[in-house]
């Protein structure tokens, strides 16, 4: 087939045989770069995703909700770490990834550029945003790169708690006063469409998709995953007796799927370009938190130095 690069045949053969690619294996440079792009973006999303919810920790309506939310945000930090660690196996450092995030060269899920305005948003984020993330991540448990697949398996084990605590908030609000129901409905109205955008552009417009599918980095297409999310979420919303803000949403007996309206792609690309409500704030906060943590890193290095000195003296 390709006599010039026998490794390439061997590499594609492994993938076709459903084998995982491991860090020391030969891989095409494009595969490596594609993974670094996708995995670091995924890691950044976990870390930046802490901000919209973190804003509500001090304002949670009860001590119980506060510890639950604290616990969830702590998990997101952990998920970021699993993913950074898996990405580092591809030969990029944590510091480089951080620098690319802060310079804007690296992206993160555009949904985290929307503000979390009310307590119901915390519920909607857990239910819808984490729900969409789970659909994507369950699929990625079978991605072709071993360390990424294993990180996904660890993450998926913890995600179910995230989605349920969010849905639980929605249930309580839906059972509450008219004002609480209205707050819940308003949160759904604002988070539904951005949640659908999380799956990325249509397959026909997705620049990275085709190669990613051939290399099995992605196992299911953006549109397939989006459909799966819509299909399972409609019933969950019916139980709440609230509505998804889409007049075109209806069951299609022939397709055995829900039809739904067109996403506002102009909004999607505007937010990716940096013109969402919170893009600048999110990065500014990340830079600030990183700078404010500098003394901790310096103290750790100084402590290690002193300990080494003491050991030499002894």
């Amino acid at each position: 087939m390709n006599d010039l690069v026998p490794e390439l045949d061997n590499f594609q053969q492994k993938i076709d045989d459903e084998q995982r690619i491991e860090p020391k294996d030969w891989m095409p440079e494009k595969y490596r770069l594609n993974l670094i792009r996708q995995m670091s973006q995924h890691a950044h999303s976990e870390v930046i995703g802490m901000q919209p919810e973190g804003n509500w920790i001090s304002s949670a309506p009860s001590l119980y909700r506060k510890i639950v939310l604290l616990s969830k945000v702590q998990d997101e930090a952990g998920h970021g770490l699993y993913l950074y660690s898996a990405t580092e196996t591809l030969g990029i450092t944590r510091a480089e990834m951080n620098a690319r995030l802060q310079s804007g060269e690296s992206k993160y899920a555009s949904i985290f550029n929307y503000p979390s305005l009310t307590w119901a948003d915390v519920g909607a984020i857990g239910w819808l945003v984490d729900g969409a993330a789970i659909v994507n991540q369950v699929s990625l448990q079978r991605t072709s790169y071993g360390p990424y697949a294993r990180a996904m398996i660890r993450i998926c084990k913890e995600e179910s708690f995230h989605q349920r605590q969010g849905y639980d908030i929605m249930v309580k609000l839906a059972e509450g006063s008219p004002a609480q129901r209205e707050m819940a409905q308003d949160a759904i109205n604002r988070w539904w469409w951005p949640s659908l955008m999380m799956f990325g552009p249509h397959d026909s417009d997705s620049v990275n998709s085709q190669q990613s599918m051939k290399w099995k980095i992605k196992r299911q297409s953006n549109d397939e995953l989006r459909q799966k999310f819509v299909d399972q979420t409609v019933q969950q919303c019916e139980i709440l007796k609230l509505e998804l803000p889409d007049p075109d949403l209806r069951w299609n007996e022939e397709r055995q799927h829900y039809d739904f309206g067109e996403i506002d792609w102009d909004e999607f690309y505007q937010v990716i370009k940096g013109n969402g409500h919170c893009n600048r704030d999110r990065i500014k906060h990340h830079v600030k938190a990183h700078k404010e943590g500098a003394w901790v890193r310096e103290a750790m290095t100084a402590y290690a130095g002193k300990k080494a000195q003491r050991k030499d003296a002894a």
Partner: protein
Amino acid sequence: MSESTLVLFEVFVRSNRGLDHQHVGSVYASDHEQALVNARDVYIRRGEGVSIWVVKTTDIVASQESDVDTFYDPMDDKAYRHAMSYPMPEGVKNI
């Protein structure tokens, strides 16, 4: 070669692509390369693995259950960290 010049290495084997390396035992060797060869001879003679890691035993820092009580606390008082502590409404699916 006298035995005293040999160093102990811990051996980790990946039994199949896609799986984590797992600790299987240790070997003595004079350096990392020899440790790999020895580990192959000792631990994967019947296709038990596709990749081996060797790490000097002295480079491994291990914790013990008895070190600090709180280190391995199962956090049983933090039931809210588990999905099961959120009862779902009757009939809701895929959550």
